[in-house]
């Protein structure tokens, strides 16, 4: 397993990240690697506790070992850049975002269900492809946005470029119109990424 190459597989697009990575190899490297590791470890261990349901010493120690292994192997996948600033605020935004999304999803589904069971469905639907550019920058934000679009009324993300170009398939005109709209505004990571 070599760490240098691994960095590459993350999505370090900006030159800033590259510079950071070269500094990673210097003295700071170990410490910068440590935080993602630790956070991954904590998340993983929380998950383990939920999964396991056995709280005796044997299983707990197994849990520790397993979490350590996973963190060692994959913490860089979870946190491709060693910087973890702003993580917390992102999470807060995310938690606020989810309930809103839920409501949207239910609305979306009712809409689609209506279409599905409508006897003259063929006349109602009018599929089209909408293109727009999102202001979001980070991968994660883009992906969350794209998935949210997929989950919400009559739209499916067809293509996202790394620069935020979206292609969306909408089932009818009404579904496609409001994009990007409110959803983008509510996205976690929208504000955070501005410093990148």
């Amino acid at each position, binding site marked *: *397993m070599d760490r240098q190459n*691994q960095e590459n597989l993350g999505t370090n697009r900006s030159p800033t990240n590259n510079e950071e990575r070269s500094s990673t190899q210097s003295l700071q490297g170990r410490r910068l690697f440590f935080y993602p590791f630790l956070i991954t470890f904590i998340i993983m261990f929380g998950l383990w506790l939920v*999964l*396991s349901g056995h709280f005796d010493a044997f299983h707990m120690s197994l849990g520790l070992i397993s979490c350590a292994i*996973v963190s060692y192997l*994959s913490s860089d*996948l979870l946190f491709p850049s060693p910087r973890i600033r702003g993580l917390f605020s992102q999470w807060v935004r995310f938690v606020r975002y989810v309930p809103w999304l839920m409501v949207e999803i239910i609305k979306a589904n009712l809409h689609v269900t209506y279409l599905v069971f409508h006897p003259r469905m063929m006349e109602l639907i009018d599929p089209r492809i909408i293109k727009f550019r999102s202001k979001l920058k980070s991968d994660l934000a883009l992906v969350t946005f794209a998935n949210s679009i997929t989950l919400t009324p009559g739209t499916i993300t067809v293509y996202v470029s790394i620069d935020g170009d979206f292609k969306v398939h909408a089932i009818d005109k009404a579904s496609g119109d409001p994009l990007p709209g409110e959803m983008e505004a509510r996205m976690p990571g929208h504000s955070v990424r501005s410093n990148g």
Partner: protein
Amino acid sequence: MKITGLIIAVLTGALLIYATADFPAWGDPASPASTHVSPRYIEKTIEETAVPNMVTSVLADYRGYDTMFETTVIFSAGVACFLLLRIFRREEPEERLYRHVLTGVTIHVKKGGKLPPSDDFERIDTEWTPHDLIIKTMCRLLIPFIQLFALYVIAHGHHSPGGGFQGGVMLGASVIVLAMSQDLRTAVRRLREKVDALLCATGVFIYAGTGALCLLLGADFLNYRALAPLLNVDPIMARSHGIFIVEIGVGIAVMATMIWIYSNVSSSGKYDEGL
């Protein structure tokens, strides 16, 4: 051929259906299969091995010998795929393609030419396609969870369904997901082919080695009871722990083999971008 196949299939089926007449009814608790050998497994599993999941106890202890060979089957399948498909390219191709990671510009390098050592370029094949952002990111996020779940499955084989094999497959699958969401080279960079092959052998070796260790400690092959003094527990717990050790071995072997087979099949032995 179609008619022949049909005739053979129907004949076989007829013979088998004819034989079902003498079967005990489906789900009959008094059938020989349920009364002859299996009751001991059910009633004594806790007493003899301290493992509530009797499938695990039978799998890894009562019939642990089968399972050892089961793992060997997987291992040999991995070796077989390697033997059949792997191509070690000796001669340099006419030209190589390098992609600048940041801009996506592709550079053609003629035979003999060289790029300055840099992380910004990666070697690609003609087949290379841009990564899909959504898939790539989501898989990146999911992989650690899949891995943890797989480890959980291996560790809790005693109490719930699952065990080394299932966990190993999922561990392997996590790497396969990585290979699919990005490309095979990435996955191979994380887990080198040689390491993978060695892991594969190690996993099975752990299993068979545990058995042989019992042999060296004076008991029959795979009789984990003999491990008791070594692990410092009573013989019944020794069986339980023995099962656990073995499951780990199975997990490692299966994981490595799945990755091995996938890498070979998906790149037809070239270890390029793969699927």
